[in-house]
């Protein structure tokens, strides 16, 4: 074998390597292009919404593009005032008054119930667990009427109580189930070590289980916040006074009351209504992903 032959082989190898690299780069470019395209299609309504909220009413229907020609804050200013005696601040505050007890209550109650199901043996455990699953599978609509009657008899109509009390008592089977599944993936040794260290059941829950469950609990809180912000039917059924309306109802309010309504006001308020969910989601994104991808305990 001569050196020239060897270098010819080396050149050939180099050439194929270069070709492979180029092919890889092209395929990556194509893939990203497709992904970006699909992403844009999915995001477009949101982008348009934000753009349109700065447009004048006339322009909204005249121009399908999302960059406003004459940007104006009128939508926000008029929208915030609303056509009622209250500003949007009231409605935000109302939403907050529902979300806060609901989320805190869910986090505490769902964790406690999940801990019970995942770690203890008690009579009729299987029956109770089956009940939880049954609730999970039951369509919400089915329980609307009996629930309404119950809350009416309790005198809770036109108050926030029907909206958050059931959840704060671990009424959301989905969250209980999610936490049970997460807890099942966590080995029991740490809890046993804590018991040997002298911790009682409650101390084990607070000092060991809750920190281990933290990612899942964060996910539960996020889901609860987003779903509560988006909940329209619940407030519609139980809340009748305008001063107690949460955002979801207030948005609809501006459509109802005026004959020829201003779309830019509605769109502007929609943007504001979206903002809290988005901000909270981005803040807790890391824990959220860890929480829903389950089994988050290493070592």
């Amino acid at each position, binding site marked *: 074998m001569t050196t020239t032959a060897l270098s010819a082989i080396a050149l050939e190898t180099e050439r194929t390597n270069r070709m492979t690299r180029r092919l890889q780069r092209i395929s990556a470019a194509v893939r990203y292009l497709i992904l970006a395209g699909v992403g844009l299609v999915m995001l477009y309504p949101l982008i348009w919404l934000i753009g349109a909220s700065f447009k004048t009413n006339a322009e909204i229907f005249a121009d399908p593009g999302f960059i406003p020609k004459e940007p104006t804050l009128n939508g926000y200013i008029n929208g915030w005032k609303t056509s009622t005696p209250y500003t949007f601040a009231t409605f935000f505050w109302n939403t907050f008054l529902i979300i806060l007890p609901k989320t805190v209550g869910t986090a505490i109650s769902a964790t406690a119930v999940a801990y019970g199901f995942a770690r203890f043996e008690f009579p009729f455990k299987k029956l109770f667990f089956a009940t939880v699953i049954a609730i999970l599978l039951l369509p919400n609509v089915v329980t609307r009427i009996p629930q309404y009657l119950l809350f009416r008899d309790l005198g809770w109509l036109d108050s926030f109580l029907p909206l958050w009390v059931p959840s704060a008592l671990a009424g959301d089977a989905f969250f209980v189930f999610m936490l049970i599944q997460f807890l099942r993936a966590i*080995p029991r*040794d*740490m809890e*046993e*070590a*804590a*018991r*040997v*260290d*002298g*911790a*009682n059941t409650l*101390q084990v829950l607070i*000092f*060991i289980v809750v*920190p*281990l469950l*933290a990612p899942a609990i964060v996910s539960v809180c996020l889901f609860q916040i987003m779903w509560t912000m988006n909940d329209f039917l619940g407030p519609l059924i139980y809340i009748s006074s305008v001063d107690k309306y949460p955002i979801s109802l207030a948005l609809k309010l501006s459509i109802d009351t005026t004959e020829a309504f201003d779309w830019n006001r509605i769109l502007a308020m929609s943007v504001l209504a979206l903002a809290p969910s988005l901000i909270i989601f981005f803040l807790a994104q890391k824990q959220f992903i860890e929480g829903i991808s389950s089994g988050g*305990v*290493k*070592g």
Partner: protein
Amino acid sequence: MAGLQIRNVEKVYGNKFKAVHGISLDVKDGEFMVLVGPSGCAKSTLLRMIAGLETITAGEISIGERVVNNLVPGKRGIAMVFQNYALYPHMKVFKNLSFGMRLQRRPRAEIESGIGHVSRLLEIEELLDRLPKQLSGGQAQRVAVGRAIIKKPEVFLFDEPLSNLDAKLRAAMRVRLTSLHKQLKQEGLSSTVVYVTHDQVEAMTMGDRICVMKDGRIMQVADPVTLYDRPENTFVAGFIGTPEMNLFSARLHKGASGASLEIGKQRMALDPSVMARLTLGDAGEVTAGIRPQHIAPAAAGASNTLEGRVSHVEFMGHEIYLHVVIADNAFIVVTQSAGFDRAKASEGAMHFTVAQDALHLFDPVSGKNISLGS
């Protein structure tokens, strides 16, 4: 300062499966007791029952003079080291060590001096500020041991603490734990240990006494030397020692000219000393046992030998393991590699002498050793 008494303890799972069959065991104050047995022999279950992590179906467990059956783990005066360390992943080492003391609301000064002492003892001072996931296996193991020591318990419980470490580290930790035990004893602290393992090397090297278990029953409790020299049954004989004891069926003959053992078509005359040891005098079927170290290639011209065919030779360094077939029974013979003639072994047939003072005879039905004397 306390020993541990276990009286007729039973464990039944769900009315059906009986995991522990009436075990009684006394662990003296300051003793290092090893529970050893194959997987599924309920050694861990027994340990967890002592800890209070598993309920007791019947019987009684007392630590010191106190019956602890109905006490929660935290009140039993025990500390436990788990197989996978079970460190609290969200707490730094310092908090891991002090968790128990903080629950008891001990004064801060006491916690700090306790941690200072333990971390010096185990050389984990530099690790106090780390999270468990930043520790290597050996370090995590030391922290887990530290968490047990800091409680100054009456009884230490170890549940296969070394099985997650690599072989080299395991050997080092073995020595470390034994010397730690001695040190605690010297300091006058309670140092009663119950140590669960499936590794008989750990058991033999660490235990003051060893409790060999099988299927939820105790097979023998004794110090390592007794266990090795005087196994009470075929299970212990086969379980303790590497390579394991050669066990084979044979026939015991008694005649006017003396006793002999018939193995297949071969016969070996038995020393009168062996016969003197026999507690069951009848001739007939027996299970005989001889350790690989107590059977050796016979010197030229020796009498009373067994003939076997060497099927395989394993060179282990200073020793050689010969795999031999004697009268259709597979044997292992360990011999010094120095002066061993490999060419001779490869020829096939060889003669072997049995060290008769180390020969064991077992009842073939019950498996009991009938050659222990009285």
